């Protein structure tokens, strides 16, 4: 089992969708929310994902395809 710590940033049009629930259901990824701030206009959620490496990859690709930005929680690693 692999673990991945990520931040999702939701645009307004996706705030109402149960993305995290579907990520768990469709891709068999355990989602564990640690911090979040969601309003009617936007939202971000910091969470830990646990599951099969391939399932996590496929799940994150699906989340990205929904227009949600996915970032590592440690922020951008590539520096100048």
């Amino acid at each position: 089992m692999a673990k991945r710590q990520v931040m999702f940033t939701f645009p307004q049009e996706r705030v109402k969708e149960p993305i995290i629930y579907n990520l768990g259901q469709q891709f068999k990824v355990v989602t564990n929310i640690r911090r979040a701030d969601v309003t009617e206009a936007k939202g971000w959620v910091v969470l830990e994902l646990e599951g099969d490496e391939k399932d996590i990859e496929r799940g994150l690709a699906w989340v990205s395809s929904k227009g949600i930005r996915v970032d590592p929680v440690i922020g951008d690693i590539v520096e100048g």
Partner: protein
Amino acid sequence: MSYARALRCRKCGQEYPVQPMSVCEFCLSPLEVVYDYKAMAKTVNRDKVAKGPLSMWRYRDFLPTEVKEIDLGTGFTPLVKADNLGREIGLDRLYIKNDCLNPTYSFKDRPVSVAVTKAREFGFDTIACASTGNLAASVAAHAAKANMKACVFVPASVEPGKLIGIAVYNPVLMTVEGSYDDVNRLCALLVQRYHWGFVNINLRPYYAEGSKTLGYEVAEQLGWRAPDCVVAPAASGLMFTRIWKALDELSMLGLIEPANTHMFVAQAAGSSPIVNAFEAGSLHVLPVVPDTIAKSIAIGNPTDGQYALRIARQTGGGAGAVTDEEVLAGMKLLAQTEGIFAEAVGGVVVGVVKKLAASGAIKRNDLTVAYITGAGPRTQDTVADVVRPLVVRPTVESVEEVLGVPA
């Protein structure tokens, strides 16, 4: 020995022993080094610092390392009074901290020197990073000096010219096919799998502390006082927070009067998530997709963005961004008034100082320090349009003709 006592979460306050680790296990927020300041206060004083080496390591007592430092001779760079530039933009007491003059030509040598020293202490034999230039060069150079292995990852899109300044130190250099985000994701995975010291991932809390020396040095060079205003660039926001931490520590330890410095963040308009948040009055820094010629600070999702933001607000400072045109103009202005050829980030800082002075956010008489953090030659093509030579034949007449000397 050092006075480092623990790692502490910046968000929830959870503490961890000193170890290679950068994110809180509970809330996944960044960790920072905390010190036993009571013990530190008994040892540190101005005289002791003044007797130290003419490098960043004169502030060894304030840094979290236990073993002999891995040092290329970094730091104690000049703080120059910028009278010409100040006259141009309306500031009477403008100073430039010229950190172009480090061994690998940028301020990155400061955090990397601490991170690599700590890597050795933790028993790593390989140090690693992902970078588009300055950081990779610094990591590779320190690895060479330390007889350690370096493994550096560079997005394949980086200009070939930049690779020379990295490859010359002979690291394992990998160009990663894929986007900038792909490189981010790859490195986040590698750090879990390999026992490597990634300077800005698992060594990040220690790496960060090296940048404090930018604050200590300025205070000492000003005759042990804090500036009225600081303007510094922000990419991840880490360096910005550590300049403030340094001034705060010096005040707390009684080496300077309480710091009342206004801290200003400088970013390029094409990558300004911290400035956006400041202007929107937001507490959260929303990621952006960077698009600017100031590549060294093109970070869309800044790890320490919200902490840099908080410092800018709490100190009565601010935040400013400039367009790429203003960046180029700033680079040229700095070179042509003060003789300092900085990379594009220097143009960002000069452009933002100019704006802040024009708006009155920085007053004419404020003692202002602008941090210039990297040298221009590595990316000199940015300003290639300055080359407009007068072409002459090898005769005196020809020279006089182009100079307009009357015959």
